[in-house]
């Protein structure tokens, strides 16, 4: 018995080794000239960024279907390979390896979350794979490398704008509550830095992990510090909405500020009337932008809902930009050509007119706006529950 097992083991192990060797010698498959152009998509289909990831995947799929319905790219259809990065670096790396090693794509649209982007970006830069995000806003991404691009506006800008808006509203004592993620903490830090530069004082700061559901203790401590306003930097709409609801429950009635997450459709549903008057500083689609509103109405028609309009537009535009560049290179394995095309391109799409990319791969030519959440009775699917007050002030 014992000997049998030994033989068995030795046999299996040697077969294992032989096959490993054989597979290692295999060459890469040749890509053919007429098949579909394949690009990877890495978004947070699950995890704390799921709302964004889902919206982004849906917007991208819509764009691809439109492009293919119009005859594809140089006659070749465009094909997406979707992986879930679960809004964290580790899963982003796994997803990245699956996309590049197993599916063999060289151009990846994504990610939804900055943490995931920062996890996968060093690998992509090393392998010469394009990472092109419509949603990741962390400022570090600017320096992530030559192959890393985005149409999302950096958090640095959101933070500076938020600081300015609060100061000009007469806020002098600020309390902050922040989700422990790169995105939220980045927003908080830049906001606080700008606010303090202007002369404001931060009287309380609390943070929470992504799966927290009970914020009352932290909020109690913040409210006891007697701030003029509370700034909420959340990553998930669930947390954003719940914080707004719970802070009103413990009796706070001062002004609230946030960024786009706190005014997402889900967040507003959770918060209900508590969110009325919440001010958000965010990138948004200008109602005057015909292309943007058209994309949103097509999205609504196709999926039966719209949320996070700017991200719908951004993810949608990314596919069209990618299609434009693939039209020029006609090769989904040519990441360098794609990169050069992005540096050169100037685009007018759903999220703005005539924007382009600077030498860091950052988008230039887009601006943030200030919006105020409407009372529940006035919230509709068309206005997303808030009204745009205007572009963020500059000091």
């Amino acid at each position, binding site marked *: 018995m014992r000997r049998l097992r030994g033989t068995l083991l030795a046999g299996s192990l040697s077969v294992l080794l032989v096959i490993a060797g054989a597979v290692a010698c295999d060459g890469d498959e040749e890509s053919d000239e007429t098949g579909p152009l394949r690009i990877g998509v890495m978004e947070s289909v699950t995890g704390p960024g799921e709302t964004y990831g889902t919206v982004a995947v849906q917007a991208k799929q819509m764009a691809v279907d439109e492009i293919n319905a119009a005859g594809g790219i140089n006659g070749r259809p465009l094909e997406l390979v979707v992986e879930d990065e679960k809004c964290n670096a580790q899963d982003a790396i796994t997803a990245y*390896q699956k996309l590049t090693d197993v599916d063999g794509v060289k151009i990846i649209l994504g990610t939804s979350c900055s943490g995931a982007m920062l996890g996968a970006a060093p690998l992509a830069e090393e392998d010469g794979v394009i990472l092109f995000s419509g949603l990741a806003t962390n400022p570090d991404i600017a320096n992530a490398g030559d192959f890393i691009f985005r149409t999302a506006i950096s958090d640095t800008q959101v933070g500076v704008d938020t600081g300015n808006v609060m100061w000009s509203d007469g806020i002098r004592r600020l309390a902050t509550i922040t989700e422990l993620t790169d995105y939220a903490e980045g927003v908080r*830090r830049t906001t606080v830095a700008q606010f303090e530069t202007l002369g404001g004082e931060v009287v309380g700061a609390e943070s929470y992990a992504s799966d927290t559901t009970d914020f009352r203790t932290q909020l109690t401590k913040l409210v006891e510090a007697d701030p003029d306003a509370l700034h909420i930097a959340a990553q998930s709409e669930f947390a954003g909405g719940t914080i707004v609801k719970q802070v009103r429950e413990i009796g706070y009635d001062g002004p609230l500020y946030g960024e786009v997450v706190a005014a997402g459709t889900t967040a507003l549903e959770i918060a209900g009337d508590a969110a009325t008057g919440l001010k958000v500083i965010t990138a948004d689609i200008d109602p005057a932008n015909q292309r943007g509103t058209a994309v949103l109405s097509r999205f609504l028609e196709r999926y039966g809902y719209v949320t996070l309009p700017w991200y719908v537009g951004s993810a949608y535009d990314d596919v069209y930009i990618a299609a434009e560049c693939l039209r020029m290179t006609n090769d989904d394995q040519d990441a360098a050509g794609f990169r050069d095309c992005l540096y050169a391109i100037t685009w007018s799409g759903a999220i703005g007119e005539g924007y382009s990319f600077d030498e860091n791969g950052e988008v230039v030519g887009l601006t943030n706006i200030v919006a105020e959440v409407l009372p529940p009775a006035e919230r509709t699917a068309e206005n997303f529950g808030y009204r745009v007050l205007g572009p963020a002030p500059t000091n």
Partner: protein
Amino acid sequence: MNATPPRLVPAAMRARIGLIAASRGNVELWANLAVLTWAVAFLVWQGTGFAVTVGTVFAIWAILAVSLNLVVGFTGLLSIAHVGFFGIGAYSMAILTSGTSYDALRTDAIPTFGWPFFAALPVSALAAGLVAAVVGVVLNRFRDDIFVLVTFGFAIISYSVFLNWNELTRGAFGIHDIARPAAGGLVLDSDGEFLAFTLLCLALTVAVSWLLVSSSFGRVLLAIREDEGAAEVFGYRVAHYKFTVWIISAMLAGIAGGLFSSWTRFVDPYSFVLLESIVLVSVVILGGLATIWGSLLGVMAFVLLEEGMRFVPFLPNESIGQARQAVLGVLLVLLMLFRPQGLVGKYRL
């Protein structure tokens, strides 16, 4: 194979019954066969690129499982705390080797040391061992299910520290740019080289564990597991033995942690949640208690289960981790019902 078939049954039939009975008695053989065939099939199917990733995951988990088996299987202490030592090793490596200076405008800066990998790896083990010593003093007071409960507590406390000690661990943001093994001109930077190095560490772990359990020390551990009181009566200082194996196991887990963070080049607290620990214990029990080969087999089955499930047609990609966890849970229940010694184990829980 107790029942001799009645004489009326024809010879061919008798042979078949014999075979079935033999196979039933040989769950061990079948388990080995199934997992190894599966491994080979998987390699053929996927190719090396992805198999290198899977192999590294396997090697790191195997170090963890073998070291945990020293405590759970050989000594009989069901510990859920192992992920804490794994995390301590990972964070030691991360903090000591990461050279990135973080932009103070956005996240907390943490001290940077810029050590090389090989200087940090022993520290990973030592740090884990040190914490294990402190925890062990508390844990030595408890037995059976109370022991389990307190190790639960340690797993949660360590996760809480990783998550909240921002000045040292950068909390939820994690630490980037962790060093790969490099000494002099030799840099193990590619994934294949790293896999080789990890397998070497696994081999060392197995060697150390084997020497430990086959020595007289190991026999005392077995005695403690079977009857702690009796071992004490025979004059062995039970607490001393339990304490020693506890620390050795934690140090091995620390090494696994160091390898893990060097491999992913990024750590955050979410890799060290309580659930990971529960899953790890489950894998050890699945493989078999008090057997080193069983732990290796259990981890192989577990890793392949996930990577294999990636290619199951009806399962959406994002559900794989959960589906595997569900399978593991059901397996655990079945094992406890029919085979409390695990796939290839000798000792029943």
